[in-house]
């Protein structure tokens, strides 16, 4: 049950409550039912189209259940294999060859990361030098201001347009 209405204005609140409760339902727009039926038809057509699509061209979530289970098992096996790779390599005696391959790959990645670090470092240094210039700071302020101004104008226009669509 609701908390009783405040005693100070009990009568008018009760009248208002009764009036609100007596408000009849509003008339739904004529386009509501055709819109729902069209959306249902579109969904059914999309489902039919999906059913005609071979499984390997569908999203993974729409694969047959058996295939999804098989994929899950495969992924779990792969993860387990990776987790226990050192032990497997030691058992099969291929540890040193694999280690050499991994070391080469790691070296390549390290070299690439080093080059990127140098590049970004140089860019950062250039920015730090130019940021001290009042022109650059002013330009950045103008860009930032324009961005937020456009965002604001867009929002205001959207709100106004959406209010105008009210019946």
């Amino acid at each position, binding site marked *: *049950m*609701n*908390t009783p209405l*405040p005693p100070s*204005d009990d009568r*008018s*609140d009760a*009248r*208002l*409550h*009764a*009036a*609100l*409760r*007596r*408000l*009849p*339902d*509003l*008339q*739904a*727009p004529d*386009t*509501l*039912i055709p*819109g*729902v*039926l069209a*959306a*249902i038809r579109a*969904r059914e057509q999309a489902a039919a189209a999906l059913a005609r699509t071979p499984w390997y061209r569908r999203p993974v979530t729409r694969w047959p259940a058996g295939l999804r289970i098989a994929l899950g098992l495969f992924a779990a096996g792969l993860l387990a294999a990776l987790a226990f790779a050192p032990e497997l390599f030691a058992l099969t005696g291929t540890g040193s060859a694999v280690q050499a391959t991994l070391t080469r790959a790691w070296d390549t990645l390290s070299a690439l990361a080093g080059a990127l670090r140098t590049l970004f470092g140089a860019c950062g240094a250039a920015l730090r030098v130019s940021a001290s210039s009042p022109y650059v700071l002013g330009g950045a302020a103008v860009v930032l201001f324009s961005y937020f101004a456009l965002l*604001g104008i867009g*929002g*205001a226009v*959207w*709100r*106004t347009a*959406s*209010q105008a*669509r*009210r*019946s």
Partner: protein
Amino acid sequence: MSDTAEFETFMRNYQNMVFSTAYRLTANHAEAQDIAQETFLKAYERFDGLRENPAAGGWLKTVATNLSLNHLSRYKKRWSFFSDLRRQDDDGDEGTAFEARIAAPESRESETASQEDTRALLDEALAKLPHDQRAALVLYHFHDMPYQDIAEKLKVSLAKVKTDIMRGRDALKRRLAGRMSELELHA
């Protein structure tokens, strides 16, 4: 009768209730229509269980309410700044004109406003409330929800719910000044 035809009849029976539920919470015709459409699409997915169910109306109302509140919370996060600006404008211009119409019924062509007029004005006044006040007021008066449940539903404090409902009622009464006696007459 085919499933689609049966569902169409089902929609015809409930469309006004679902649309009203959404409109009274969102106060926006286009958004209420979108929410009503989404509600019926959800109903279609479980139509087998709903077609003979006497609680179907309650289910539809709950879904429409939840979708409307979700919409309002998303909307609030994105657009509250612009919305508040707009609401202030509304109160300043349209609100004054609206109050003038209510406070001076003799300026209207017909001095004896019909019951439908009063109801339309009440609906209009409700739609002009700020989102927070309207949502709390609608859940309290139309859905019979206790304050605590409203607070949980709207994810706000109990004190805010009470304040919003009180302010909402005061705003409605102000806007319906001169018509309160008519409300009583129609009781």
